[in-house]
């Protein structure tokens, strides 16, 4: 038992050190621009393998929740949910590093040192959010995550980038200061600490206070992009494709979802939330808020004409589904939310990678230019299709499994009609806007020639295709990942 503890400590230190190592590598190797990418990819891939070993060690510990002191005074919290989160982020981060080897080669306007430095720092902040033992530490790294992604969003320094990144920073920091911080400090002043614990620590506050606090958290954690707080996400899409892929489809937004899950499980306690959240017309008020967010974002997504903003609104949409699943507040719902979080991350990062590939190839970012691409880039478009079908939720792909699990959770014991209906509507809308693109991609009649293609064609075989292939394999073989997630989630103590 003790020796395992010891081992896990070292492994976690390795994981935490790897993004810092990457950041320092990026700084040290600034003179050899072309060679930074490969060592950074190797380090990140190594760290994602380490996360698997951590999970294995954690299994052999046989407990669901543990606080470990890393070194003097620094305590981390380990439980299945944050292990899943860390594994997901580190794998997709290494895939992004693989992807950006060729991407940076082809887009010389991106400064490689700055890109790798701040990307690694953001990933480090994400890991720290995941491992934080209490809300204060979590809040500190939450703010640092916003700050360290800012240079990536404003990387080109043009007028549009400057305005968008300003909105990005203001929304995230503003929401966290006005809603998130007071809620934390309320807990701090009434409980005296904010350390996560099994069964929750705030389960003696009156019901209406808990409702207000939960709503403050819901809107304060603006990284989860619930609708009135979602403006930053489409704005953040001025960033380059790898950044959008790993941060604005995975690390940043998923850390928002992760924080909400963590707060509901380990701060309030699921059972307490289920019984005490106020109701409105026989429906849980949090569910109503998430439903509103879900429907609005679906409708807005229908009218998008650029691929990146479409993907952004689709992300907002899917994040709302995660929150909707969570808002049922029972163990199955939390499982469903986690499963959906991972499946969506895999699908969405593939979509971003593929559209980045298209952008590199022929500088296309408008949806109407996607017509006939299916013939030109068969392989990549096939992978794009797989990912899109997964996001819609067609059988055998990742999205199907996770959405089916949400239905299962909603039907379990007592039927939650609101969740069922809104989820169905949103699936239909998602299907509508994605199938529209797929249709135009494989539309043979209107074929536009893409001239720039020849220039780049010979380079494209390399790392970008590999990265897209790996992540889309993740969506196709999601069943196996799902098994492991379920095994881990069974360890969670509620």
């Amino acid at each position: 038992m003790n020796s395992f503890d010891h081992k896990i400590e070292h492994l976690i230190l390795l994981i935490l050190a790897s993004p810092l190592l990457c950041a320092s590598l990026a700084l040290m190797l600034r003179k050899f621009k072309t060679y930074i990418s490969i060592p950074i990819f190797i380090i990140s891939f190594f760290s994602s393998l380490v996360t698997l070993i951590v999970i294995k060690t954690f299994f052999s510990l046989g407990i669901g929740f543990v606080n470990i002191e890393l070194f003097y005074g620094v305590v981390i919290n380990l439980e299945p949910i944050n292990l899943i989160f860390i594994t997901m982020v580190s794998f997709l981060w290494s895939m992004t590093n693989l992807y950006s080897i060729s991407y940076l080669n082809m887009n010389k306007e991106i400064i490689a040192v700055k890109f790798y430095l701040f990307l690694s720092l953001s990933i480090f902040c994400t890991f720290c959010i995941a491992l934080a033992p209490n809300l204060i530490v979590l809040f500190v790294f939450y703010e640092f995550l916003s700050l360290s992604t800012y240079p990536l969003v404003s990387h080109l320094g043009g007028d549009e980038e400057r305005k968008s990144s300003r909105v990005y920073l203001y929304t995230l920091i503003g929401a966290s200061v006005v809603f998130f911080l007071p809620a934390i400090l309320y807990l701090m002043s009434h409980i005296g600490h904010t350390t996560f614990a099994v069964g929750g620590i705030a389960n003696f506050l009156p019901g209406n206070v808990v409702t207000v606090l939960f709503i403050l958290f819901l809107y304060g954690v603006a990284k989860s992009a619930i609708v009135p707080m979602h403006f930053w996400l489409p704005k953040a899409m001025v960033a380059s494709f790898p950044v959008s892929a790993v941060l604005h489809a995975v690390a940043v937004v998923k850390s928002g979802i992760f924080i909400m899950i963590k707060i509901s499980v380990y701060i309030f306690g699921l059972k307490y939330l289920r019984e005490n959240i106020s109701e409105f017309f026989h429906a849980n008020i949090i569910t109503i808020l998430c439903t509103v967010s879900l429907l609005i974002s679906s409708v807005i997504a229908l009218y998008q004409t650029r691929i990146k903003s479409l993907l952004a609104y689709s992300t907002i949409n899917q994040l709302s589904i995660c929150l909707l699943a969570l808002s049922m507040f029972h163990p199955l719902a939390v499982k469903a939310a986690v499963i959906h979080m991972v499946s969506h991350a895999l699908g969405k990062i593939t979509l971003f990678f593929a559209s980045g590939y298209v952008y590199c190839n022929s500088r296309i970012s408008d949806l109407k230019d996607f017509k006939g691409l299916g013939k030109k880039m068969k392989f990549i478009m096939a992978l794009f299709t797989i990912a899109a079908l997964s996001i819609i939720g067609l059988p055998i792909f990742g999205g199907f499994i996770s959405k089916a699990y949400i239905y299962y959770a909603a039907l379990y014991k007592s039927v939650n009609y609101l969740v069922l209906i809104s989820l169905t509507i949103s699936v239909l809308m998602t299907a509508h806007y994605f199938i529209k693109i797929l249709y135009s991609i494989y539309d043979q009649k209107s074929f536009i020639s893409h001239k720039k293609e020849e220039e780049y064609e010979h380079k494209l075989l390399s790392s970008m295709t590999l990265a897209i292939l790996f992540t889309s394999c993740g969506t196709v073989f999601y069943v196996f990942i799902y098994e492991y997630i379920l095994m881990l989630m069974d360890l969670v103590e509620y």
Partner: protein
Amino acid sequence: MIKNLVILEMLLPILIGVSHIVNRRAHLVYLVTCITNVVVCVAAVFICIHVFQSGDMHYYFGGWLPPAGIEFKITKFNSVITCLISVISTATFLHGKNVMFDEIDISKINSFCGVFLICLAGFIGVLLTNDFFNLYVFIEISSLASYSLISISKDKSSIKAAFCYLIIGSIAATFILIGIAYIYSASGTLNIDDFISKLPNIQESNSVRIGYCLILVGILIKSGLFPLHTWLVDSYKSTNSFIVPFLNGTSSKIYIFLAINLTYLIFGIHYSFHHLNISFIFGAMGAMAIIMCSLAALYQSNLRNMLIFSTVSQIGYTFVALGLGSKASAVAAIMFLFGNILAKSSLFMLASNIYLNRRSYDMSKLHNLKSHMPIVVVLFAINGASIAGVPLTIGFSAKISLIIELIKKDMWVMLAIVLCSSLVAILYIWKFMETFLYSKAGSINDSKRKDGFGVYSERELYFPLSIIAFLTGANLICGVFFNRFAEFLNNLIL
């Protein structure tokens, strides 16, 4: 031996200051003043260490025992503040050689340094004395010195500002003097310890009440709380950039120290907050300061004016914290005091360095500073973060201790004001950061232009910047070890 250091600390600056009249060599004067500052600083640190080891120290002038004689009493609280003040004064001097020789006529430097030292001695006297009348004398010494320090500038409006300050400051000093007279008439003693022991018997007396209020009004005027802040804005705006960091770190902050001393230590929490209920006045004036001056700072396009208004709003925070009337809130107020002294003085110093390079404080001339003065921009970002309340700085520690106290007292309106204005603080700091980071829209060649703006480039300013970096480091250390810092401050005001 160590007892004589106490009087040395105050007398040495006065003697050296007077001797500057006969010394006409400017560089020698500067050197001697620096050495004096360092000596005072070292003496203050020694006294501080001694007080922490062996308790309060008393120094009786001429061996006359109180209540008849004049007494200096050094407690943990005032010794720490003395250290801070002398460190700021030393830092200003070591840092400001370029600024001083740039802005002040070389024939006036000897008298300027002389007056500066007398001002410092006055402030140290205010901090250390344990006698009401002596307090008034030192207030007058320091104020008269600071009027003349303000009037020396290339900008002629500084004379008008200094004259206004002279009138308002004299009115404030008169208030304090009359207040002291009332207190003397009721208690028959001028020694503060003696007065504290007599206070329970004369609590109900009207003259004590009137005296208390008059002294308080005087202190509020001198500290520049919102409706009484005009002298501060005018004089800082027009005076030379050398003296602003010093005055910001000392003159108005000394009076905040006096306010804490008067309300919490001399008259006690019960008398101040339950008997007289001054918390409403502090709260209302502080809230107005926070709102109005944050907004005013937001609309400034001049770097120094922005910092000045931000200072006034920070004073507002301090008084809001003071007005809550509990020990924890006094700790929060002292944290604001520390944060304001360290961060804002560094910001003023940075501004003066920027002025050396660009010859302007105006926003339109400050574009793309990062390619000319990268270190300045980094330091500006850290200190600005402290003002805005970003985690891991003193500003954040102060703000969360204030917010926790506000939540404990259920003061929701004040909480909303504090949160919104800290958002505004982020905005006004960020506005300037953005100016520093980007080149002017449309002029791409700006970054290629050589250092042709001013006489000084960053290479020549490494030594001044290292001084600022030292202050910034102190700020960060106090912010990171938040718990220990709070404990330390808690010990100060036992």
